[in-house]
């Protein structure tokens, strides 16, 4: 059974149905890419997994249906780290306090070490460690969002356009890091990404969403070969 | 992408009011709104023909509070500046009118416009330092203003104008002879003073309501809301945020101040105790319960602040058989009413109305 299993997922914003009931899996230890045009429902899918929108259907994480559970419970029980769209920075506190909040549910002694790990990946954050996080540049905040997610030592990572606003050199670096963490720590990842080349490269499987439904799914390399995907997402 | 070379070839969506698409009980919403507005206006006109005495006096008070609440709505609801101090502007309006009548012998009807001007200036001036105060800091500043107001009114240095702790007793605002004459020739009765006070209040209230309506649905209104939603980007769009915010303070103070003038004329008496912090709270409650960014909401708010204490009073008295001295619990019941109101309509009456309209229109 997959680590994360979605069946018949529908999601709602008030009266509006944004997702129309599709299935999606994330296997343990794998990276899965989610592609889709503007407004296709990628963000909504990730939000539904975390209990941030009203949803129906089932979302099974580690054998437990999480639909209807509170966000904080889902996140804490299944060690899911979410890099949200718009970054979700705690703008009033410092960079380092943001990282500390990322580790809020942890009780182990390794937290200090993990600061250093994040700072190692993103040296820029170390330079800005005591700065009010709201004044960081857009890309710096994006690094912070990823760093904060890593602070949880997650089992599953949901990444909503993690390369958003990052310089090319950092984007490249980021995907190396994600690949490394996935390999070394076995963290499973669901990656929403417009930078489809990079995402598909590290993914095993991929989904293509279109207006609230899954339009295509399969192994990442197969998807890459698809004519339409190549044209719309890969640009060659 | 569509090209737009042909001048005057306006996209279809512009001519189509989005509200036209909402059909309530078979009638499109804008029509319903317009009819509602006319019905309301008609009611305002008809009321004095039906009611007299205390009843019509109460309707006048509702309109008066409506204006005061409207003032706060313009500032807090539309412009995002929080005020706990509008009792001060209410006082400035009332005292301007009273002092003009009492000291200068100006007839009551002639005091409204100068009082409005005084309040605008007062509000504008207060708005200047308020520019630098954000959120809670502005709340504190206005709170302080509300607390200081009665003390300033009592201050010995200006007591010869304000009447100090004694307040001012005003002359009765008799209707002009020609109006009396017209009414007499139509009805054969003399126009009662209560009816006249109401008519005068209604006239002022309707004019000012229309002004607010125009203002909100205009470039100015959009700028005010833009500042509320995102001050920095509003500035970048070319909006002089300082001027707009201070002016919003001025206009808001003017509305509440004119309400104060009408209050003085209606009650023929004023004293510092009528302008305490509790009054500012009243306006805020009226604004939020009606719907803070809604003009219609202000009407409901005006009614609410006037009537809810009576209802609480009544509810308390009805407990007579179960509790001793239930009147001591009026405050408790008032509080419960407020909480209940927020539960039922967290976005105010206007918000509730919107939801209901939506429900009715989608069910069909």
């Amino acid at each position, binding site marked *: 059974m997959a680590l994360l299993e979605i069946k018949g997922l529908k999601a709602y914003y008030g009266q509006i149905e944004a997702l129309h009931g599709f299935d999606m899996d994330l296997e343990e230890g794998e990276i899965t890419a989610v592609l889709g045009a503007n407004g296709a429902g990628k963000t909504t899918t990730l939000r539904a997994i975390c209990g*941030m929108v009203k949803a129906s259907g089932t979302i099974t994480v580690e054998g437990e249906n999480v639909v209807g559970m*509170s966000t904080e419970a889902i996140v804490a029980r299944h060690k899911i780290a979410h890099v949200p769209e718009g970054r979700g920075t705690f703008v*009033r506190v410092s960079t380092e306090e943001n990282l500390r909040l990322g580790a809020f549910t942890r009780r182990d002694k390794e937290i200090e070490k993990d600061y250093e790990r994040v700072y190692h990946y993103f040296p820029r954050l170390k330079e800005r460690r005591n700065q009010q996080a709201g004044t960081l540049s857009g890309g710096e905040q994006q690094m912070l969002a990823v760093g904060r997610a890593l602070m949880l030592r997650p089992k599953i990572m949901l990444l909503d356009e993690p390369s958003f606003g990052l310089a090319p050199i950092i984007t490249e670096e980021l995907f190396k890091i994600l690949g490394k963490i996935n390999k070394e720590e076995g963290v499973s990842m669901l990656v929403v990404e417009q930078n489809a080349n990079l995402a598909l490269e590290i993914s095993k499987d991929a989904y293509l969403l279109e207006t609230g439904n899954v339009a295509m799914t399969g192994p990442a390399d197969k998807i890459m070969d698809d004519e339409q995907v190549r044209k719309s997402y890969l640009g060659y | 992408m569509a090209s737009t070379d042909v001048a005057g070839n306006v996209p279809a969506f512009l001519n189509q009011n989005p509200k036209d698409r909402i059909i309530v009980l078979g009638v499109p919403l804008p029509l319903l709104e317009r009819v509602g507005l006319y019905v309301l206006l008609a009611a305002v006109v008809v009321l004095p023909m039906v009611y007299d005495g205390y009843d019509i006096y109460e309707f006048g008070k509702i309109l008066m509070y409506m204006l005061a609440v409207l003032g706060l709505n313009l500032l807090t609801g539309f412009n995002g500046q929080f005020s706990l101090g509008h009792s001060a502007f209410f006082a400035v309006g009332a005292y301007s009118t009273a002092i003009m009548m009492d000291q200068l012998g100006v007839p009551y009807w002639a005091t409204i416009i100068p009082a409005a001007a005084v309040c605008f200036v007062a509000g504008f001036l207060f708005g200047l330092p308020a520019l*630098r105060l954000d959120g809670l800091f502005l*709340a504190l*500043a206005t709170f302080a203003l509300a607390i200081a107001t009665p*003390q300033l009114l009592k201050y010995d240095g200006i007591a010869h104008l304000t009447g100090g702790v004694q307040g001012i007793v005003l002359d009765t605002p008799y209707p002009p002879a020609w109006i009396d004459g017209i009414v007499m020739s139509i009805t054969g009765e003399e126009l009662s003073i209560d009816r006249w006070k109401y008519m005068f209040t209604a006239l002022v209230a309707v004019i000012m309501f229309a002004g607010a309506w125009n203002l909100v649905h205009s470039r100015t209104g959009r700028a005010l809301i833009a500042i509320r939603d995102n001050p920095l980007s509003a500035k970048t769009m070319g909006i002089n945020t300082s001027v707009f915010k201070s002016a919003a303070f001025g206009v808001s103070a003017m509305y509440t101040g004119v309400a104060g003038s009408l209050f003085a004329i209606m009650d023929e008496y004023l004293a510092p105790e009528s302008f305490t912090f509790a009054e500012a709270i009243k306006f805020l409650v009226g604004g939020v319960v009606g719907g803070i960014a809604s003009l219609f909401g202000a009407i409901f708010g005006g009614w609410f602040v006037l009537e809810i204490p009576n209802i609480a009073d009544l509810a308390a008295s009805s407990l007579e058989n179960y509790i001793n001295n239930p009147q001591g619990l009026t405050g408790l019941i008032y509080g419960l009413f407020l909480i209940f109101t927020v*539960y039922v309509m*967290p976005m105010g009456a206007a918000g509730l109305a919107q939801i209901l309209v939506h429900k009715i229109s989608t069910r069909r």
Partner: protein
Amino acid sequence: MDLFIEQTVSGLASGAIYACLALAVVMIYQAIDHFNFAQGEMAMFSTYIAWYLMDDAGLGLPFWIAFVVCIIVSFIGGAAIERIVFAPISDAPVLSHIIVFIALFSMFNSLAGFLFDFTPKQFETPFGHTPLIDGVISAHRAGMVVVTLIMLAMIYAFFRYTPIGLAMRAAAAAPESARLVGIRVGFMLALGWGLAAAVGSVAGMLIAPITFLTPDMMLGTLLYGFAGAVVGGLTSPLGAVIGGFLVGILENWMGTFIVGSQLKLTVALVLIIVVLLVKPAGLLGRVVVKRV
């Protein structure tokens, strides 16, 4: 003794009152990102509970036991208010919450009068009222300053050395993000309300021996508490205490040397606003920069 010194000391003593309440204001601000206008009335009501616990007509408990019980009861009460009254409207706009604060204000005020009537009650103090130093300050006021400082140290430590303090601020300012990192926002809110109510109850029990216990005891005091907290900086407990003392002293100086007692409050408030114009985040408050 020199009038200046005497007024200053007297200002410090009333400042201690404001500082107490300002601490409660800071506490709730950290928890809900806003003022709670009912805070004073809640503290007043807590004090009545303590009075009832101590009074012969009530339970007749000794002071310190009543003190502790009152703090616990207030904590539970504060948390319960959050869960019962505010949790269901957590999505409502802030202004609607303010209306509920006003409602709570009215309810506690009314209930206190109904249950305990309006005659001033004497509230015991373990320190006694003996005059100290030439009759400039009483033992209770001195004790009050000490308790305030102890409370300050505890609150400071809470925010400085426990992760909960940080999480509480995060939950108040950005609930959605807070949930994403696993913070139980509802719990934090309830905890914040509980702690604020507890701090408020201590403030009430310290203030009551001076002002006497009446349902309107906090009516005016709250403004000074707000002012103290704001001047000091809403995010800083130390700032709140300093702010409280400053407001107390300033008010006395104004009333005595500058404008006379009739306008002292007005002028003191104007001065506070001037301070804020110069230092918008208060004396020790963290300046929060917004950028695009």
